[in-house]
């Protein structure tokens, strides 16, 4: 079947088998391999993308659900549009060593941006609770939590400008 949606700001039309998962569509058909698949039980969160602005696990979503929707993946995350800069959350992860092997990172970033968008005054407890659906095996989460707090503050500051 044919579906049309907005992918990272661009109108996109693709032919898909109806049983295709969004994560597979992105990785195999559209060559956007930044969205990772770390499990088969929707537990790890490496595949989180934004569907109409909300974080979803793309390994649990069928491609036909994209029709008419807006999808943002890690490849589309950026600072001010056209600025060629990283998003403040990406900058914060680099600044605070919020990643090691990098495999969970795209999902962490997408979840973090959604958390900070939903609740601008995030507490440490909010962040820890909000990251429950994203597993990291490398960092012990400490620097991820620090990064998300810093990234959220930077997003707020940018909004205020």
């Amino acid at each position, binding site marked *: 079947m044919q579906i049309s949606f907005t992918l990272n700001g661009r109108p996109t039309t693709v032919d898909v088998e109806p049983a295709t998962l969004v994560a597979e569509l992105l990785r195999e058909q559209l060559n956007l*391999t930044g969205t990772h698949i*770390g499990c088969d039980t929707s537990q790890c969160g490496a595949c989180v993308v934004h569907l109409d602005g909300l974080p979803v696990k793309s390994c649990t979503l069928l491609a036909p659900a994209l029709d008419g929707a807006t999808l943002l993946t890690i490849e589309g995350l950026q600072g001010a549009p056209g600025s060629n800069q990283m998003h403040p959350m990406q900058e914060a992860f680099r600044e605070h060593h919020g990643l090691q092997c*990098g*495999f*969970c990172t795209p999902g962490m970033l997408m979840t973090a941006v959604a958390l900070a968008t939903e609740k601008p005054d995030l507490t440490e407890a909010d962040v*820890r609770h909000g990251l429950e659906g994203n597993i990291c095996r490398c*960092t012990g989460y*400490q620097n991820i*939590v620090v990064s998300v707090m810093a990234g959220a503050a930077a997003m707020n500051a940018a909004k205020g400008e």
Partner: protein
Amino acid sequence: MGNVIGIGAAPKRKEDQRFLTGRGNYVSDIKRPGMTSGVFVRSPHGHAVLRGIDKSAALASPGVIAVLTGDDVKADSLGSLPCGWGITDAKGTPMKEPPFPMLAQGKVRFVGDMVAFVIAETPEQANAGAELLKIDYEVLPSVVGVLEAVRPGAPQLFDDVPDNICCNWELGDKAAVEAAFRKAAHVAKLSLVNNRLIGNPMEPRAAIAEYEPGTDRFTLWTTSQFPHVVRFLMGALVLNIPQHKLRVVAPDVGGGFGVKQFHYGEEAVITWAAKRVKRPVKWVASRSEGYVSDRHGRDHVTEAELALDENGKFLAFRVNTLANMGGYLSTFGPNIPTNLYGPLLSGVYTTPAIYCNVKVVFTNTVPVDAYRGAGRPEATFVLERIVDVAASEMGIDRVEIRRRNMIPKEAYPYQTPVLVQYDSGDPMGCLDGALVAADVKGFGARKAASARKGRFRGLGYSTYVEACGLAPSRFAGRLGARGGLYESATVRVHPTGQVTVMIGTHNHGQGHETTFAQIVSDKLGVAFENVDIVFGDTDRVQFGMGTYGSRSLVVGGAALSKATDKVIAKGKKIASHLLEAAEADIHFESGKFSVAGTDRMKTFEEIAGAAYVPHNYPLEVLEPGLEEQAYYDPVNFTYPGGCHIAEVEVDPETGTVTLVNYTAVDDVGTVINPMIVEGQLHGGIVQGVGQALFENAVYDEGSGQLLSGSLMDYCMPRADHLPMMKVATHSTLCTHTPMGVKGCGEVGTIGSPAAVINAVVDALSHLGVTHVDMPATPNRIWRLLQNASLPVAAE
């Protein structure tokens, strides 16, 4: 022009850009023209005779290209998966080493054992074909626990391995230990289980292989921590592919923790299959598949006894352990519960006599091998737990008993009774630092506050040391290693003075691209941004043993340091010619070669240029070019260690243990990049906390089914399980590595399980609880509380 960023600085990581923007290059991201998909058909039984496989329906399924089984492996006369260590018992009898076929032959020995490989045009077609394979199994009873496996009448995995015992390994002076026990004023005893773990790096394993008929060359892309070792083991010992015809690439790898430091049968099957089907073949494991095929870790049952005099001085330590090997010997398998366990039983203490017996046992479970810490967390857990038991039984404060037995700083180098000689350390300094950092003085008030909420609060200590920087080859060889454990580095200076380093270690999260670049920037005085680190490709990197055992900086960094020294030495020769001065008078500092006592000098870039444009150059005595290589084989292990203090709160209503504070003061030697070291400590600690509180691989006795076979059943630590940890370093310098480094990748995982469980036991000690097995789940604690004397309010 960028800046020199040297040793001790904390630049942001070079590798982050690609990971933050979704541009990493992991094996599963790679696509090759004409690529096919493969799936492994795995045994659903723990133990069964493989009576026959009917491929016909599978082969007729749409898109299926080939189905390979153990019979095909046999027909092609391929080798068995090799074990890299051959241990012996006290009499020198070699371990039992049954063959480990890459696809099962005659029998399957664990749930997940590979039976067939189905190749098709798409993953869906491969899966559909696999469903149609008819496999005739005669199911046998399984044995999964070590205690059960050595009992008379237990199911036998191999006809020629009586009682399932691979090796009955011993270390230490048994007679001296027995004599010391006879004199002891007190003997503390402890029985414990070191729970079985599954490493779960976030990237599942994957591989792609390709064969080029025109050149007779193979390429394997694999999620590996040691591509050169895979090339050797697989090429030379399994598939008979000449080394120069085989390229192994391990690109970005999403975490390893040991799980990816073995040569797996999947790699061999896929490489072999690529030639048979004459097309590239790709396989990506699902997480569920990883649970039943990634090598597991730990799984010990131990009886320990500590003999003490009337003042609490340790006289002797005796440890008897049954260690689970699973169904076959994996690459490092038998080395882990023996050579990486027994020699650690001295810990940071002056115990004069130690004896350790380890029975290495086969069971119908996934093969067990190294997982972060590998042997050393198990040793630390036994020792640090029994020290607490002894302190409690003798009425001596837990910190005080440690102090009375600790090796004083001035006693280093210190020869233990269990092979190893610690070169440097200051356990007392780490302990003192941690006591302050953890605000142990304020613990009483915090405990009282918890009690007012109806919670029990406990504090736990772990003062520990480990042996890493694997390893001195000569020493390892005496212990049974079948390979060397050196490392290699090439420093290639380009004509413009920029530098590319080719190194045999593998970066999968540890920040090598940054840390190693700092070393080069520091030593050669070139800008940090002008140094790139290449790893993970046997065609680009000369050789290497890979990354595990906290060896990358210790052994690889030392090779890199030596290679940069050679570059400087050659640069001095070139400078001496250009500056018309004696070589002995050339001084190199901050990127400049100068003549001592003069202002005549040449920059590093000028020397590099002269080396590649040798118009004015001593060609009679010196080759052009500026590229040097070094191999480094360490003279000893390194011995990082420290003191960890955990603080927990137990809710007696639910049995839930909450880690409320965690403090670590670790001695990792010289710190190159403190940001990265801190990150390694955080991650390591949380993996140990995972073992102590959450993680447990559970098998069903009899059927051999893995009951904890998904992220739903095997609890991984999550962000909201954890407090903010305090980590700090208190370093003494390693005396035998070029930069004084000791390694930091595993210390967290080694020190933390004992600290956490000691805290849990402390919290419950008023109820008569003397030991809690890991993981201290709510269920386990709640049951313990139901069986304990009625909970009275904590003081």
